[in-house]
């Protein structure tokens, strides 16, 4: 009982300290200049959540007062009014507010908030009107190899290497060795726990390839996002939207007659209710299902990154009130446990995306007039399609 009281006291003290001092942490003076810590932290987190044109590991201010960036540049590939233009992102010198102008192919470019603008011939700097539309410049089509693209390519190559090795080992010895032993149970898990029960015995083989790819792609990219390299690939709307569109295409193209009848002209319903149901079903199939897939993954991963980085930022924001050791300890403990939870979330989100994809595909290929399997007593064994009907 005493331990409870003590830990409760400790919690109370920590929370009082936390909430009462948070408001004082807004500003701190360092090296003579006023630094708004809260603003810096916010900018840093927002910058991390966005995609960027260069691979920046960290930056520091040297003794001479110069800002040094450590990382490597990535190629910028843009479609301009003069056709395809490429140059390295190092030409922007890590500038993100449009002050550094790059000239290439007789055109001038500026980068503002990770967006590249092509300046008009006479302009020397991008200027914005009231609605934040550029007046003397326009955006270009951007096909750059950004940080997220590097992440996707990296994981693509890695997965190709891992799984082709696994396949080769099955051909040779039938028992995988080394790292492939980690992959085998996961592959079996996706096949036996996700694909088979949700899609049904008859059709699951055709879709297992896609489900495995999407599962490992999301899972490994989620885990990559937890490393200090600062990737945030599955937290990009473009990536998750693309994955959701793949699922949409697959379940739309593989739908059978029953499925389309169910959407467009529901049997067993009064005739006047059928058009209303059709509208709802169409909206559900083509908008809500992919939208929920893409937003769930995006929001979970982004929220996770924001939480982890905010907890790391406690180190700086509470430095004045808790002292260097106190703030660092608090931040370390909190961010350690949140990172552990994030490891779980990384798997869970990959699982849920794959699971729901399998479910949607299963709904599209389900056959309704099928015979049930029977057990020894001659009783019907309900299969996954019947169980699914109970909760969908």
């Amino acid at each position, binding site marked *: 009982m005493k331990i409870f009281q003590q830990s409760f006291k400790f919690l109370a003290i920590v929370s009082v300290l936390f909430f009462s001092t948070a408001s004082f942490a807004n500003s701190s003076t360092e090296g003579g200049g006023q630094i708004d810590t809260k603003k810096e932290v916010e900018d840093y987190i927002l910058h991390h959540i966005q995609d960027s044109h260069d691979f920046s590991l960290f930056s520091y201010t040297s003794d001479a007062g110069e800002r040094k960036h450590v990382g490597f540049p990535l190629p910028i590939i843009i479609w301009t009014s003069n056709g395809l233009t490429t140059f390295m992102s190092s030409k922007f010198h890590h500038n993100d507010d449009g002050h550094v102008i790059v000239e290439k192919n007789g055109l001038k470019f500026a980068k503002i908030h990770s967006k590249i603008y092509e300046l008009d011939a006479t302009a020397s700097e991008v200027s914005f009107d009231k609605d934040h539309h550029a007046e003397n410049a326009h955006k270009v089509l951007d096909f750059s190899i950004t940080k997220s693209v590097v992440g996707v390519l990296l994981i693509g190559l890695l997965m190709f290497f891992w799984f082709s090795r696994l396949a080769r080992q099955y051909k040779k010895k039938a028992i995988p060795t080394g790292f492939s032993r980690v992959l085998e149970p996961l592959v079996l898990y996706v096949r036996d726990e996700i694909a088979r029960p949700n899609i049904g015995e008859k059709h699951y083989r055709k879709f297992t390839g896609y489900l495995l790819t999407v599962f490992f792609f999301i899972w490994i990219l989620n885990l990559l996002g937890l490393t200090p390299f600062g990737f945030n690939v599955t937290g990009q709307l473009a990536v998750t939207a693309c994955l959701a569109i793949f699922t949409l295409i697959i379940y739309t193209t593989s739908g059978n007659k029953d499925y389309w009848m169910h959407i467009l002209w529901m049997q067993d319903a009064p005739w006047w209710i059928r058009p209303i149901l059709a509208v709802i079903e169409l909206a559900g199939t083509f908008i809500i299902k992919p*939208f*929920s897939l893409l*937003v*769930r993954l995006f929001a979970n991963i982004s929220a996770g990154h924001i939480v982890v980085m905010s907890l790391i930022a406690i180190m700086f924001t509470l430095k004045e009130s808790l002292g260097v050791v106190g703030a660092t300890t608090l931040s370390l403990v909190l961010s350690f446990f949140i990172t552990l939870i994030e490891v779980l979330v990384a798997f869970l989100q990959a*699982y849920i995306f794959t*699971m*729901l994809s399998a479910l949607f595909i299963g709904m599209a290929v389900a056959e309704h007039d099928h015979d049930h399997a029977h057990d020894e007593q001659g009783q019907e064994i309900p299969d996954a399609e019947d*169980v699914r009907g109970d*909760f969908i």
Partner: protein
Amino acid sequence: MEPVTYNLIGAGLIVIGAGIGLGQIGGKAMEGIARQPEATGKIQTAMIIIAALLEGLAFGALFLGK
């Protein structure tokens, strides 16, 4: 009040709603598992799917309100 404050109130309401929903799902699934431990696997699958659907709704609302 500024619009940002309304957004935050809305976010709070969404989180309350989602929290109640998730609590219901989790609690009922616990009860189900306690009554019938041999059905744990099926209950968990159904639970996760419904939780995911609810989560999608909540995140959709948060996302639109941003």
